[in-house]
């Protein structure tokens, strides 16, 4: 290959990555591969010539015995039960942990607005002018319902900024695209995202998906009786050594206007 060919090959690695798969006889490829490597197909019994063995002058024919195929027990199968149990434990801890901790007096998280009491100046206060309403705001951690499960414990150090870049609305709900600039997937995992009805302060259920390009898609469903008008997205970051899952610091919040699809970054100082 000439030097120029090599330059062209190295300049365009995406040409190889972006090829669309085509149909091929995978069984034939597998069989041919095994044949070239001199391997037997799984489960096949090797047939060989009969061996002749002399024994006291007599020729005895050695018989080949068929060996039943060996079942390969994959290592992961023995772990399945433990994995399911671990998932259940984690799910229970996520659902009930905050409630248990706050009721038993564990954890160092700042009391939520419901515990502080409603009033002006808190980001979750109800419509201005009212001191008591029928809809009492109860933050997610008090009800025991975390709208978005916390990510794993992060590594120290991060940089970059967070922006809400797109609000798309569909038949099933709406999705906001958050961009965590300059952060790796591991760093993004340090953040917790919670959403509330901006008017009533009630927590909204949402789900998120992170991709490798530093974006998190946060999706909300329409069939939530408390979702009207505007939604508030609150982003917190896990701090400390992770020994308490309530070591969060508020980072940023966004107001999502579902009518105009406008996204506004809220100043933390309000």
């Amino acid at each position, binding site marked *: 290959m*000439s*030097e*120029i*060919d090599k*330059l*062209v*090959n*190295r*300049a*365009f*690695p995406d*040409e*190889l*990555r972006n*090829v*669309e*798969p*085509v*149909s*091929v*006889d*995978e069984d*034939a*490829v*597998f069989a*041919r*591969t*095994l044949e*070239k*490597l001199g*391997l037997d197909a*799984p489960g096949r019994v090797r047939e060989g010539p009969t061996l002749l063995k002399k024994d006291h002058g007599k020729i005895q024919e050695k018989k080949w015995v068929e060996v039943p195929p060996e079942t*390969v027990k994959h290592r992961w199968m023995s772990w399945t039960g433990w994995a399911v149990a671990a998932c259940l434990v984690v799910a229970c801890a996520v659902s009930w942990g905050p409630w248990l901790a706050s009721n038993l007096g564990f954890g160092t998280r700042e009391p939520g607005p419901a515990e502080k009491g409603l009033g002006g100046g808190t980001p979750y206060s109800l419509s201005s002018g009212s001191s008591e309403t029928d809809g009492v705001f109860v933050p997610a951690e008090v009800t025991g319902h975390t709208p978005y499960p916390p990510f794993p414990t992060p590594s120290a150090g991060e940089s970059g900024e967070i922006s809400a870049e797109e609000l798309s609305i569909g038949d099933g709900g709406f999705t906001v695209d958050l961009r965590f600039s300059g952060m790796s997937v591991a760093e993004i995992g340090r953040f917790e995202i919670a959403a509330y009805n901006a008017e009533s302060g009630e927590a909204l259920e949402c789900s998120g998906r992170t991709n490798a390009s530093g974006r998190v898609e946060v999706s909300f469903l329409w069939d939530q009786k408390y979702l009207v008008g505007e939604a508030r997205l609150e982003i917190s970051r896990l701090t400390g050594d992770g020994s308490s899952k309530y070591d969060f610091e508020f980072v940023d919040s966004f107001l999502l206007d579902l009518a105009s699809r406008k996204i506004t970054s809220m100043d933390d100082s309000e």
Partner: protein
Amino acid sequence: MRGDYDILIQIRRKEQSALEIAIRRYARYVAAVIQKTLGNAGTPQDVEELSSDAFVALWENAERLRDDSDLKYWLAVVARNAALKCQRAHQYTEMLEENLIFDSSSPQGRLEKEERIRLVRSAVDSMESVDREVFLRHYFWHQPVSQIASEMEKNQSAIKSRLARGREKLRKVLMKEDCLL
């Protein structure tokens, strides 16, 4: 689902099940690369044969691969090289001018090579989209002029003109860089 790392580790241990998983996962993609390289010259049997060669190479070279290797990309490179070898004897390719000589072994030479790669990419990306496609089909995928003309529904002389234009552009960019160095 097993990741590339798990598959690689198990292939190093000569576990056939991992090889089968690699084939089930990547055979269609490897076949696509081979088919694109061979073009009309390749039959389905050729594609299967060369695909199996790529997986044989994986089995035999697993120890040499890095733990974080992208198996899909590695298989694609191997498959493409195998297809090119198969095709080279039967095909006429207009070679780019090779009058640019530089030492790529010294640190200075390596830097120059990286710069040339960047220049090549920049020059090709700045071509008209049709010229770019023709250029890459011929000089990356090594598709013959006849195949390119047939698939792009153009006549062969038009394809050759575009290739000549692309070569001239690349030559000017690289020669200019040589003059500055």
